C-alpha cells in the first residue's frame, strides 16, 4: 500500500495547473456543448421544464468522463513503460502489484473528482438532485466501479503494447460502442431491438441507469419504463470492475517480467 500511495502522490505532484484546469473544464464542456446542444436537437418535443434533459444526460456524461480518465491513466502507464521510468520502480523493494494499484487509484480519483464537478454543474443548470446521502454514496460506488473496470481495460492494453498509436486506436474502437450502444443518450425503448441487446450487455447502461435511480431522479421520467433495476446495476458494475482488474493484472504481470 505504501508504495502505491507514494507513486500516486508523485502523479499529483506532477499535476500542472493546465492539467487541473483541463480536468475541471472537461465535464463542464460536456454539459454545455453536448448536453445543451443535444437538447436543442431532440429535446424539442419534451415537456416544458427543460431541465429534465440535463438530468437525463448527466449520468452519461459522468460515464464518459470516467472513460476519459481511464484512457489518460492508461497512457501515463504506457509512457512510463516506454521511457523506462518503470524500471526505477522495478528495482525498488516494493510489491509489483503496488504499481498497478497506483495506476488504478489515479484513474478512480480523477473520475470521482470529475463526477463531483459534473453534479455541481448539473445542479447549477437547474437539475433536481436527490439529497439522500445513501444514494450519493451508491452513485459514487457505481462511478468508481465503472472507472475501475475501464481503467483495467486501458491498463491491460497499455501493458500489451508499446505503441501510443496502437493504444489509442484500440481504446477509441472500444470507446464508440460503449458510448453509443447504451442508454446514456436515448431511452432503452427508443432503440431498435439489436441495439437494445447491445445496450443491455454494456456496462455503461448500468452505471447510467444506476445514477438515474440514485442521484438524478428527475431524469428518470425521460428514460422511460425500461430503466434497469438497481440491483442489476450494482451486480453488473461489480462484475465489470472485477473483469477489468483481472485483465489488467494478467497483462501487467507479463509486462513487468
Amino acid at each position, binding site marked *: 500500500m*505504501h*508504495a502505491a500511495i*507514494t*507513486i500516486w*502522490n*508523485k502523479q499529483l*505532484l*506532477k499535476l*500542472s495547473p493546465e492539467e487541473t484546469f483541463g480536468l475541471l473544464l472537461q465535464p463542464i464542456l460536456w454539459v454545455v456543448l453536448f448536453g445543451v446542444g443535444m437538447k436543442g436537437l431532440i429535446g424539442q418535443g419534451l415537456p416544458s421544464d427543460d431541465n429534465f434533459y440535463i438530468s437525463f444526460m448527466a449520468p452519461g456524461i459522468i460515464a464518459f468522463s470516467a472513460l476519459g480518465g481511464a484512457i489518460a491513466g492508461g497512457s501515463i502507464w504506457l509512457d512510463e513503460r516506454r*521511457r*523506462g*521510468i518503470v*524500471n*526505477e*520502480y*522495478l*528495482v*525498488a*523493494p*516494493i510489491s509489483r502489484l503496488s504499481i498497478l494499484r497506483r495506476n488504478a487509484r489515479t484513474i478512480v480519483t480523477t473520475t470521482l473528482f470529475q463526477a463531483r464537478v459534473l453534479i455541481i454543474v448539473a445542479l447549477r443548470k437547474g437539475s433536481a438532485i436527490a439529497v439522500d446521502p445513501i444514494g450519493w454514496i451508491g452513485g459514487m460506488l457505481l462511478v468508481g466501479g465503472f472507472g475501475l473496470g475501464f481503467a483495467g481495460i486501458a491498463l491491460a492494453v497499455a501493458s500489451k503494447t508499446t505503441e501510443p498509436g496502437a493504444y489509442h486506436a484500440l481504446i477509441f474502437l472500444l470507446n464508440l460502442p460503449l458510448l453509443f450502444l447504451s442508454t446514456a443518450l436515448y431511452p432503452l425503448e427508443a432503440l431498435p431491438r439489436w441495439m437494445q441487446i447491445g445496450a443491455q450487455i454494456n456496462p455503461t447502461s448500468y452505471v447510467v441507469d444506476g445514477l438515474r435511480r440514485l442521484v438524478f431522479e428527475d431524469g428518470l421520467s425521460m428514460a422511460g419504463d425500461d430503466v434497469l433495476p438497481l440491483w442489476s446495476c450494482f451486480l453488473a458494475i461489480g462484475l465489470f470492475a472485477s473483469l477489468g482488474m483481472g485483465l489488467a493484472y494478467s497483462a501487467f504481470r507479463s509486462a513487468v*517480467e
Partner: protein
Amino acid sequence: MTVTNSIEVRGLVKRYGDVTAVDGVDLSIAPNTIYALLGPNGAGKTTTISVLTTLTRLSAGSASVMGLDVSVQPNAVRQCIGVTFQETVLDDALNAWQTLDFHGRLYRQDRATRKRKSQELLKMVELEEAAERRVRTYSGGMKRRLELARGLMTDPDVLFLDEPTTGLDPQNRANIWEYIRDLKQRNGLTLLLTTHYMDEAEELADRVGIIDHGKIIVEGSPRELVSQMGADSITLVASGDTVRLAERLKTLTVVETVTIGDQVIQIGVDSGNRRLPEIIGLAQEVGCHIEDISLAKPSLSDVFLKYTGRQLRDK
C-alpha cells in the same frame, strides 16, 4: 555464513527467444572493488546487469548479490543495491529535490533522512543551484549526475552503473570518475559498471572483464591485462609485402605479439626503443616501405584487439 564476494555469478545464461544475450558468464567481485565490464554493442553488458538488479529472470546458472540469490530473494537484493540505467530514466516534470525525495520514499526512508541525504548528494554532484528546476531543463551531464545521486540515495552496498558517462563531454566524464573513485574510498561501495571506453576502464577499474558475444573472454586488473601485451607496442604502417614482414617479425625472440591489419602491423615487444632499429632493418630487408612508425605503451585497446580480433569502436 560470511559474505566473501559482493557479486557472485556462475554460468549465467540469458536467452531472449533465439537470441542468447548472455552465454555462460562467471563473475566474482570482491567487496569494495570497481569492476568494469568492457565490451562492444550487443555484448550482453546490460543484460548481465538486468539479471543482477532483478529486472530480468535468468535462463540458467546462478547469480547472487551480497550473498542473496537474485532468483530466490529478489526483494532482499533490491534493498541493498543502487542502479543507474543505460538510458536516462528521470521523470522530467519533477525537480531534483522531488526526484530524490520520491526515490527515498519508495524505499521507506523517513523525512529527516531523505532531507539529509538529498542535501548531501546534491552537493556532491554539484546540482544544488539547479535543484529547484525541473529535470526537463537539465543538460545530459546534469541528468547523469542526478541519476548517480539517486542511485546513492539509499546507501546501497552495491552500485550498478550502466554506461555512466556515454555521451558526456570530457569534463563531465572526469567529474563522474572522481565521484566514483571517491565513493569507493569513503563508502566502501562495490561498483559494477559497463563501458565502451577503454580509457574509462583503465582509469577507474580495479578489475576489467572484456565481454563479447555474451562471454567474458579475459579478465584481470588493467595492468595485468596490458602487461600481457609486452612492455611496448610498435605500430607500423607500411606498403609492400606486409604479410611476409609479419611472418619474419614473428620469428624474432624479442617480439611477443604481432597483429596484422590492412596495412597496419601492431607489434608487442619487450622494449621498444631498443627494437625500433631492428624492425626498420627487417622491413628494408623484405622490401617493405615504411610510411609511418610509432611507439607507445600498450593499452586495453591492444588487449581487446588481441582477444576479439576486432577494434572496439572507441570514440
